[in-house]
């Protein structure tokens, strides 16, 4: 087996007595679509925060390819191709969609420190940003201010921003959160259409979507990984049912 693109070893994190990550061991091979599922409070977003450097683990290591990135700043991890989106829209409200994505493209290309040349001189970057928006069917809305975009379009812009960084690994934190069911299909179709070179891990609660788009599933419960497997394995596992039936009583 080849080296996984992203892996963690014995990752632990606690806030006081609350354990949010317990001996997390995962290894994501190239190009696989992973779903990360589990009841609320299982530590799914925490795991993404740990892997992207927004949180520091108490112990353990994170490897991108063969490089230990445990101590790197979030932006340094992005530069190496480990990129995330946010569950709650985290965008640039007053920038247009095109400006936002062009910004991400320019940061990736290392042009961002340049102050003496005006933006029209960066035609390739602007075209690339526009193409990304078009690929997510945001082409007609490229010149609109982010805050004017419909909610579903803002979710797509989240993904557009991450694509502009040319990720190897993309961690999507509930990409369809707050999007009506009929629109979330389209959104996941867009995600499924992304390059096969990109390894994707997404958090999602809708099991229909999970079983349709994930090639493998990781189940988390109270900070630890319960099990990992193909959708069929997960669907037939009695422990998973118990977790989800138990979780259903909270509603």
């Amino acid at each position, binding site marked *: 087996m080849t080296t996984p693109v992203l892996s963690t070893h014995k990752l632990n994190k606690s806030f006081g007595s609350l354990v949010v990550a317990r001996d997390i061991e995962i290894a994501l091979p190239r190009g696989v679509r992973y779903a990360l599922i589990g009841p609320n409070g299982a530590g799914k977003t925490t795991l993404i925060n740990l892997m992207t450097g927004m949180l520091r683990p108490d112990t353990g290591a994170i490897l991108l390819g063969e490089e230990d990135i445990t101590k790197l700043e979030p*932006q340094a991890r992005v530069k190496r191709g480990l990129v995330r989106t946010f569950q709650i829209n985290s965008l640039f409200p007053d*920038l247009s969609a095109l400006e936002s994505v062009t910004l991400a493209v320019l940061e990736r290309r290392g042009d961002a420190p*340049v102050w*003496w040349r005006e933006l029209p001189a960066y035609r390739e970057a602007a075209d690339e940003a526009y193409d990304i928006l078009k690929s997510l069917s945001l082409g007609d809305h490229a010149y609109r201010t982010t805050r004017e975009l419909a909610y579903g379009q803002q979710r797509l812009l989240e993904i557009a921003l991450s694509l502009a960084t040319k990720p190897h690994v993309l961690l999507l934190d509930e990409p369809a959160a707050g999007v009506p069911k009929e629109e979330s299909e389209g959104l996941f179709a867009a995600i499924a259409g992304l390059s096969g070179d990109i390894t994707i891990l997404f958090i999602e609660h809708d099991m229909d979507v999970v079983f349709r788009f994930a090639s493998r599933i990781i189940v988390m419960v109270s900070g630890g990984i319960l099990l990992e497997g193909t959708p069929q394995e997960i669907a037939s596992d009695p422990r998973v049912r118990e977790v989800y039936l138990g979780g259903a009583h909270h509603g």
Partner: protein
Amino acid sequence: MDAAARAGVTPQQYFRSQARWTPLEIAFWLAAFLPFILFPTHLSLASQIAITALFALSLDLILGYAGIVSLGHAAFFGIGAYAAGLFSKYVWGEPITGLLFAGFCAGLVGFASSFIVARFKHLTLIMITLGIGFLVHEVANAAHWLTGGTDGLQGVRMWPIFNYFNFDLWGYTGYSYALAVLFIVFVLSRRLINSPFGLSLRGIRENSTRMAAIGADSRAHIRKIYTISTAIAGLAGGLLAQTTETVSLGSIDFQRSADVVVMLVLGGAGRLYGGLLGAIIFMVARDQFSGINPQFWYFPMGLLLVAVVMFLPGGILGGLARLTARWRNRPS
């Protein structure tokens, strides 16, 4: 902005239209020549306004574009003022080199402090900038042997600009000089704002967490713009020292730091012209009101400030922009 109206616009054309000089802008700069004709006896006020506008522009670059609130920006204005004054006293009175020296000194101290400034946000950051302001003020106060302390720096003598234009009593040269420097710095700032770096700054202002998630090193950007901003503040201070041929502790005190924030908020931060407009309103109002009652001129200023932040969150320019947008989108 109507998306349909923009159909057929390429991304490059879009960015070009963003960076284009508007007729209103050109009219603004032409109007800057009016004082020569309309108020030839008030040119020293006009020169003070141009200098203050430059100072407000320097603050706009960090506050309006990168979202860094500073309550100690006068420190760099003052460093520039003292640097220019001392340069003329101990080196020579040539204005251009003196001015560059002022910007260099302020930028150097700004660069050193940028490493602290880039690490913090919100109230902590405001307190740090306030503290830097107090520190520099007290250093200038204590170094009486060098700065003249509360007596002010005496003996500043300027040579003519290009060895030809004398600094006259009426302020013809003073205003021309200040206006020229303001314009040059404005053009460069405008270019900066429309550059990739300027876009990144707006990204930091809009959402600095997200900047890290697209791989941007926000701290490096902040260090850079803070250094640029402080150097420009130093240029403004240097201009004041050179055109008035004196430097007082007033050029470096908290009041000046607070005033410039007020001007920028009044005019509208993050719009380049906000600081210029704010400086004009503030300086003219001070000139007029303090003529009526020198003690209470902050009273109408306070009223205006409260009214603007309550009803026009984007400042006067922000309010005007919203009005014109509504007018353009009116149902026909």
